């Protein structure tokens, strides 16, 4: 019942957001274009890199492109649906959060859907195209469990990214500075997920697998799909990791909320 209502509200919020965005046509087109253009530059980077060198530690270019594609896609889903979390700092500092607290709807839902990232569409499209291209240039043995894994991965990876970024944005409850770069820094750390974790030193690997489990949205699933290592099956832990991230993010928000005192009017 509650889930149904949340989904219903979510779809209504989304519809309203799309109407708002369509009002500003220049912005709409620029953002749509920006998402794809940036990801294509990232791909060009890989193209140049691999034109100069042999496979990196046993990974071919298209295998890494597949990791990137899945990250682009989930990034797109998250920006499209939950861009509002990037407004958290402003909402808290300006006291606009008051309004959300008065409504009989979860404040978390209201924050997440407060904004919609048009560039997410560009990311999703680029991600999907790259995914298909990479599939035709890599070898994956498509067993039933691997096929089933793809939707599980997309949903869980989106949840992981949303939860981590949202929790980082909630730092605004503690850091009252208006310009808070901490969430962006945490977001940036997902860069480590774009490449095989074996490239990095132990502390970084620990960071991206345990503290901020970004490895589960790119590298670990790729190990499983390409059957690179026998431990690849741990990729199936991704829904559990996602659940854990969501629980932590939720508690960070409510903990922060207890500290929140409105700047008042």
């Amino acid at each position, binding site marked *: 019942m509650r889930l149904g209502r949340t989904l219903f509200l979510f779809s209504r919020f989304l519809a309203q957001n799309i109407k708002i965005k369509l009002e*500003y046509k*220049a*912005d709409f087109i*620029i*953002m749509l*274009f*920006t998402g794809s*253009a*940036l990801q294509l*530059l990232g791909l*060009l*980077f890989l193209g*140049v*890199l691999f*034109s*100069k*060198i*042999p496979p*990196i*530690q046993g990974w071919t270019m298209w295998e890494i492109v597949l990791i990137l594609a899945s990250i682009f896609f989930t990034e797109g889903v998250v920006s499209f649906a939950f861009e509002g979390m990037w407004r958290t700092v402003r909402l808290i500092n300006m006291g606009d959060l008051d309004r959300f607290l008065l409504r009989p709807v979860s404040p978390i839902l209201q924050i997440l859907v407060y904004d919609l990232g*048009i*560039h997410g569409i560009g990311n999703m499209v680029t991600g999907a195209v790259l995914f298909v291209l990479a599939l035709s240039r890599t070898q994956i043995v498509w067993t039933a469990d691997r096929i089933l894994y793809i939707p599980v991965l997309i949903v869980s990876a989106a949840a992981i990214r949303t939860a981590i970024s949202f929790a980082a944005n909630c730092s605004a409850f503690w*850091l009252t*500075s208006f*310009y*808070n*770069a*901490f969430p*962006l*820094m945490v977001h*940036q*750390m997902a*860069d*480590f997920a*774009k*490449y095989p974790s074996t*490239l*990095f*030193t132990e502390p*970084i690997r620990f960071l991206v697998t345990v503290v901020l489990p970004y490895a589960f949205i790119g590298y670990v699933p790729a190990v499983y799909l390409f059957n690179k290592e026998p431990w690849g099956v741990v990729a199936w832990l991704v829904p559990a990791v996602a659940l854990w991230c969501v629980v932590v993010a939720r508690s960070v928000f409510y903990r922060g909320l207890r500290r929140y005192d409105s700047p008042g009017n």
Partner: protein
Amino acid sequence: MNSLKKYVRHVLCAIQETTAYRASYFINIVSQFVSYIAIFFLWKAVFMAQPDIGGMAWKDMQGYLLISLFASALISGSSEFRVSRAIWTGNIAVELVRPVDYQKANFAITVGNGIAEGVLVAAIGLVFAVLIGFTAPPENPVTWLYFLLALAFSFITKFLIVYIFGLFTFWTTGGMGISWFRRGITDFFSGAIIPLSFFPAWLKTVSDILPFRGIVSVPATIFIGQMPESQILVTFAVEIAWIAGLWYIARLIWHFAMRKVTIHGG
């Protein structure tokens, strides 16, 4: 003389502002640092597999990345959004009333931020250098001179590009998308993540014509001693031409924007 004094004041105020909000600046610069660590390890793996790429060895690449980090971090954070925020909030109206030239004042503020940030960035750069065990700074003092000049050109070029992209906010309703786009283009065509010498010929030609390479590629290549002196002078001439060109392009955009400006409230 009197008019110069106004802008010097801007510089001093910006230094004070930066030091007042040092925690934010610190986190912002550390976040740049983070993405460089990922790139650094990627390149390290690449050079372990192949010791020489296009005439560059791993120690050259280390020097290159060090300068790239430094140059990319110099104008960031608040400078990036100053213009677009002023336009977006309507505060640009106040700026228009002030008896200063907006473009010059903005440059002065960016210089002030740059001085304060530069100290922090240099400190972080040193830590980075120690961490990666980089021990091959240029030995020739003339190289250092060219490098510092290239860094000055890099700063001015980047300011103008950031400023021009900021002005585009007059035609949009937010600065975020524009800023991302600018950052993506700058990072790529300046050679921040991949040296331009590794580009395929057609792409290298494109990036040699564009002004972006002055931001990272030129100072970094000079720093690792891979640009011959004759080429340095030609490159500097091109950079000066671009700076003059961009300065007037910015003026032109400003001129068109003034016809279209609408400011809410009042």
